[in-house]
């Protein structure tokens, strides 16, 4: 630093010296280089100034807006907040730097302040002409060619060009490739939520070629476990649960919707169609059974079946809930803020909030006020009785078989009567009957006469003084093109959300490729997965995000294509080790000079440990399942009082995505590993690391039983020698051999002091199995 300073020479003016200093300070983080308004300046103004000088007209002070360029630069009586080129003439800077406590901005009592570096950054930006640009997320992305890089042998696809060029700007090199075992585990966890089979690992170790890697990616994407893994994430977003959420938290009928989501991801249903079917499948011409099931989306919100709820109040609560969810899921917008006032940071008005509600005012949601009894499941009509797609496929196969068997049996002139004796036919019919018997009810959307939606002043549902609103999209995002005299529908909204030409399609695409990136890197390109507004974090790799969004749209909203693209990049294949140097230079890994490591999500923890033990039941779809749960865990539920009966058969060992989701008392294992209650849209779960989670893996009977099963497998397939058995166990759980120290440590569980309490050999191995299932490595993706 001292050397660099002396290099500047005496010719530097004092002011520019300070800027150089700023630059040197800022260079330590990744936000150095040319100032980007969207990335560097707007977030500062938003966080420190917009609360009083932003979009919310009611709170605005001094009639000054800093969220609009024109207003911010407007000279009023010779004074302007920002005078381009002249920080010393800009009132903004003067007020920030004044020592007068009364004049100081941000106000002393706001709890906000600006660091010296931030002030210097604002000064430099103004000096450079205070260039303005639209908010990054609401600006249309443009297709751009990937940048050239000096190093040309590293990249595998254009994602890498964007990443590498930024790394080269910083004189950084990407990390080396992860070793084949790490890679295959990473892919397996990311794309299927499961630990890979030892055979898969071995085969990739033998041939870790690019082609073999590509085949591996395809195999994982084509496995039905991909849909289950994606569903776990989607169900968090749309707040899917098996119970109503409020008060009595009764069960409701919804599991076929979950199966629809799994099937949709497995069949790679295009994302725009996926959107349309969920929001408005019922409004399509001659909707299919699956499209009707998809409309369960509009019914996923929490409802209250408490005696004494005021219908009007709850309809207002439900309407707000829907807006929060649809805007959070598809637009990455925090529209909920505009329920009581115009948004503080984004150009979302209260009117926008209520106009959005109006799209959903035709959804039939009043029947439960009358019929929603304290039974299990409660009633939330409209509901239909359905077979899932899978079940229907099997039923159709049986039908065909019945038909062909019947044909062969029919002897001309004898009629149908002779068929009755055929044992095969009887089996088939019995099978058919059994399948028909698995029909499940599911809540669906039925369109009724739309309720009147008013703007509620301060969100007060008792206040009928606000204007009546028609369905409309947020004004700053454009408007729906359609016949002026016709009321817009949910179908119009769904199409607008995925219309890249005239709607919000590219915003939706950005929001989702960012989330797909998150699923493959543990962090989004913008780390704010749920807020693409002014307070969200602008992506460091903004261009890359844009190109991925365009690619998503151009591919026909092909979800698997995006995952294949990301998995195919060299960026994805990097080692995840965080070196000391990288930790200092890029603590949040925004530059992507390495991969990431993180604890598996709750479902993957459960599923992988069960898989290792050999207990996992791979069955797909069906009614929700109930694993062991501590006795009395539902003791506080009432109306009706709840009895929990764990499945005693193989259903006990189904994947986490099928576990009964009780909003008020989520299964304690899932809760301990941060699965959300699904009351609101969750795009990113925290990754805690707590004693409560340790207690689960140590003592939850599911995992104790899993350890017992694992021990049995170890003894059966690991050979007679302890070392061989430990190798077998490690390969199952960690896809590698134990080293000498690990063998030595684990061997102490097999013999030595403290274990002469009459344990049998089996019990020794159960201890070993428990130890391995509790290892950090077993539940961490590297």
């Amino acid at each position, binding site marked *: 630093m001292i050397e660099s300073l002396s290099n500047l020479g005496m010719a530097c003016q004092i002011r520019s010296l300070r800027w150089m200093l700023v630059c040197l300070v800022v260079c330590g983080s990744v936000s150095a280089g040319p100032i980007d308004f969207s990335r560097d300046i707007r977030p500062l103004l938003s966080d420190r100034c917009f609360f009083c000088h932003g979009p919310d007209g009611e709170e605005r002070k001094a009639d000054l807006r800093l969220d609009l360029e024109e207003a911010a630069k407007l000279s009023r009586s010779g004074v302007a907040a920002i005078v381009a080129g002249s920080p010393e003439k800009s009132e903004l800077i003067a007020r920030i730097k004044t020592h007068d406590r009364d004049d100081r901005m941000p106000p002393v009592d706001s709890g906000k302040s600006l660091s010296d570096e931030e002030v210097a950054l604002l000064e430099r930006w103004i000096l450079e002409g205070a260039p303005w640009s639209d908010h990054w997320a609401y600006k249309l992305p443009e297709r751009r060619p990937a940048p050239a890089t000096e190093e040309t042998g590293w990249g595998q696809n254009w994602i890498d060009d964007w990443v590498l060029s930024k790394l080269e700007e910083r004189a950084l090199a990407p990390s080396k490739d992860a070793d084949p075992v790490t890679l295959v585990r990473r892919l397996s966890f990311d794309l299927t939520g499961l630990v890979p089979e030892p055979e898969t690992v071995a085969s990739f170790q033998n041939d870790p070629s690019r082609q073999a890697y590509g085949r591996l990616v395809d195999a994982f994407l084509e496995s039905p476990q991909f849909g289950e893994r994606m569903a776990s994430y989607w169900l968090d977003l749309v707040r899917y649960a098996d119970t109503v959420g409020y*008060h009595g938290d009764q069960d409701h009928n919804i599991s076929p919707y979950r199966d629809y989501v799994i099937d949709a991801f497995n069949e790679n249903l295009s994302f725009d169609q996926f959107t349309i079917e969920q929001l408005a499948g019922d409004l399509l011409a001659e909707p299919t059974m699956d499209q009707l099931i998809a409309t369960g989306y509009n019914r996923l919100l929490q409802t209250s079946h408490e005696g004494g709820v005021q219908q009007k109040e709850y309809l207002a609560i439900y309407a707000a809930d829907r807006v929060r969810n649809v805007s959070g899921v598809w637009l990455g917008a925090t529209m909920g803020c505009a329920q009581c006032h115009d948004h503080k940071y984004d150009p979302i008005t209260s009117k926008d909030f209520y106009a959005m509600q109006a799209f959903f005012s035709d959804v039939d949601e009043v029947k439960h006020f009358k019929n929603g009894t304290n039974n299990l499941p409660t009633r939330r009509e409209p509901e239909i009785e359905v077979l899932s797609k899978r079940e229907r496929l099997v039923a159709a196969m049986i039908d065909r078989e019945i038909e062909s068997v019947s044909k062969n049996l029919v002897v001309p002139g004898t009629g149908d009567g002779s068929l009755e004796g055929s044992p095969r036919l009887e089996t088939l019919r019995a099978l058919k009957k059994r399948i028909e018997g698995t029909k499940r009810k599911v809540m669906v959307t039925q369109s009724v006469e739309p309720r009147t939606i008013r703007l509620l002043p301060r969100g007060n549902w008792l206040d009928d003084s606000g204007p009546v609103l028609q369905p409309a999209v947020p004004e700053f995002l454009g408007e729906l093109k359609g016949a002026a005299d016709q009321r817009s529908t949910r179908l119009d909204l769904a199409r607008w959300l995925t219309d890249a030409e005239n709607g919000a399609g590219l915003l939706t695409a950005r929001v989702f490729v960012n989330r797909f990136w998150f699923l493959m890197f543990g962090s989004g390109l913008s780390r704010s997965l749920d807020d693409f507004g002014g307070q969200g974090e602008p992506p460091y790799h903004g261009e890359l995000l844009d190109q991925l969004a365009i690619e998503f749209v151009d591919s026909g909203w092909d979800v698997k294509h995006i995952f294949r693209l990301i998995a195919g990049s060299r960026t994805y294949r990097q080692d995840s080790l965080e070196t000391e140097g990288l930790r200092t230079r890029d603590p949040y890994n925004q530059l992507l000079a390495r991969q990431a490591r993180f604890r598996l999500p709750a479902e993957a923890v459960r599923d992988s440990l069960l898989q290792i033990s050999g207990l996992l039941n791979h069955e797909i779809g069906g009614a929700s399942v109930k694993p062991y749960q501590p006795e009395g865990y539902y003791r506080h539920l009432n109306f009706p009082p709840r009895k929990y009966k764990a499945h005693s058969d193989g259903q006990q060992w189904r994947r986490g995505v099928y576990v009964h989701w009780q909003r008020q008392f989520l299964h304690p294992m899932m809760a301990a590993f941060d699965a959300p209650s699904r009351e609101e849209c969750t795009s990113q779960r925290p990754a805690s690391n707590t004693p409560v989670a340790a207690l689960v893996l140590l003592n939850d009977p599911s995992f104790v039983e899993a350890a017992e099963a694992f021990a049995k497998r170890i003894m059966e397939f690991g050979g007679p020698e302890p070392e061989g058995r430990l190798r077998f166990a490690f390969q199952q759980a960690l896809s590698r051999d134990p080293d000498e120290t690990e063998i030595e440590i684990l061997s102490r569980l097999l013999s030595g002091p403290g274990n002469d309490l009459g344990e049998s050999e089996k019990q020794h191995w159960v*201890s070993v199995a428990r130890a391995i299932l509790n290892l950090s490595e077993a539940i961490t993706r590297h």
Partner: protein
Amino acid sequence: MNEQKINRRTFLQRSGLNLGTAALASLIGAERPKVLGSTTGVPGLPHHFARAKRVIFLCMAGGPSHLETFDYKPTLAALDGKPMPDSYTKGQPIAQLQGTALKCQGPLTQFKRYGQSGQLVSDFLPWHAKMADEIAVVRSMVTEQINHDPAHTFMNTGTGISGRPSMGSWINYGLGSESSDLPGFVVLTSVGGRNPQPIASRQWSSGFLPSRYQGVEFQASGDPVNYVKSPKNVTTLQQGKLVKTINQLNMHRNRRLQDPEVETRVAAYEMAFRMQMSVPELMDVSGEPEHILEMYGANPGDGSYASNCLLARRLAERGVRFIQLYHRGWDHHGDLVKYMNTCCGLTDKPTWALLTDLKQRGMLDDTLIVWGGEFGRTPMYQGKGGPGRDHHIKGFSMWLAGGGVKGGSQYGATDDLGYHAVEDIVHVRDLHATMLHLLGIDHRHFSVPFQGLDMRLTGVESSRVVNGILS
């Protein structure tokens, strides 16, 4: 009870371990905890001298009637059976009485003045009467949610919207925990009383704060904490050895992986094992002297409010920052007299015992006790069975006692019929601001960024510290 004690001792002896928790913890090589209940709090907090170090929140779930506890309304008595004046109820939210003719229901009990302060306490609460000079009664509470579940959410988080942290989580986040082997936020829910309203785990959720701040529920029957017992046939010694093995393997592997999360996990396993010792020790009250058990009216292991009050004291002694007791059954739409007798019978004396016991141990000075429901009850009659009252949010009573609170004081008032709080109104947000103030926290400067906003327990609306009840 003696049998239990002996069993536990013999068990320890049989495992060759006539030792305390500390010694057992050393089994796994954890002499000093690496994570103090996981947290040390936010730098810069407390903002000012803290009058209270911990909180015991006695939540009377269902909503006790203010009109039969602390808010005496002779005018309402005079109007008993007459139509409720329209001027009070027009345009107001109504729960179960929607669309019915509203009539006044006079107080269903007598009130007397007690103590030097002359605090008005109803006949339902003879033991509260004995501590009239210790408690500060707020008679002008208001809340915004009229149904149980969202009203609890509002009382705990300051908003009816799900996903926000509960006050116990806020306080542990801000101040950290003082316990190395117990969670900093513990919830106990008692049995007994009438058909109880459900209570959801979101009431002790940490919301957007890290999940280590969430409340942990302790229960009297079954495992005191979920999964706190080792599996069948596994001795403490074996479990300790297992945990030690896991930690050794993790630390060994981490030399290569250099993952800071592994260090946290090692600490978490140590704490988990310590909890396996400390939680049963805490829950086992068989060592408490007979006169203390009698004072509370506690039968160990019965899950009663009395037992939970005793546990609350034990938790407070062990440094737990926020202890929340729920007693359900206060939802008296009908047969109010009968059910008030039940509820008060179960809670009145134990509450007195808790306060008195803390006082005699010198702990009341730095413990804040808060008593109240999620709302009050209507001055209007509701008759499911005998006379009762509906949910009411525009005026109700709560009390505070202990560190920094002016005992024997009364604050605020409702109108003549006990409908609207009219004098010195205390919103739930003001209660939160006051609690934080007593804990040394300025509510205006205690925020966490979430979804672009600086979230506060007290929200964005203005709120104030209720100085009138502070000593």
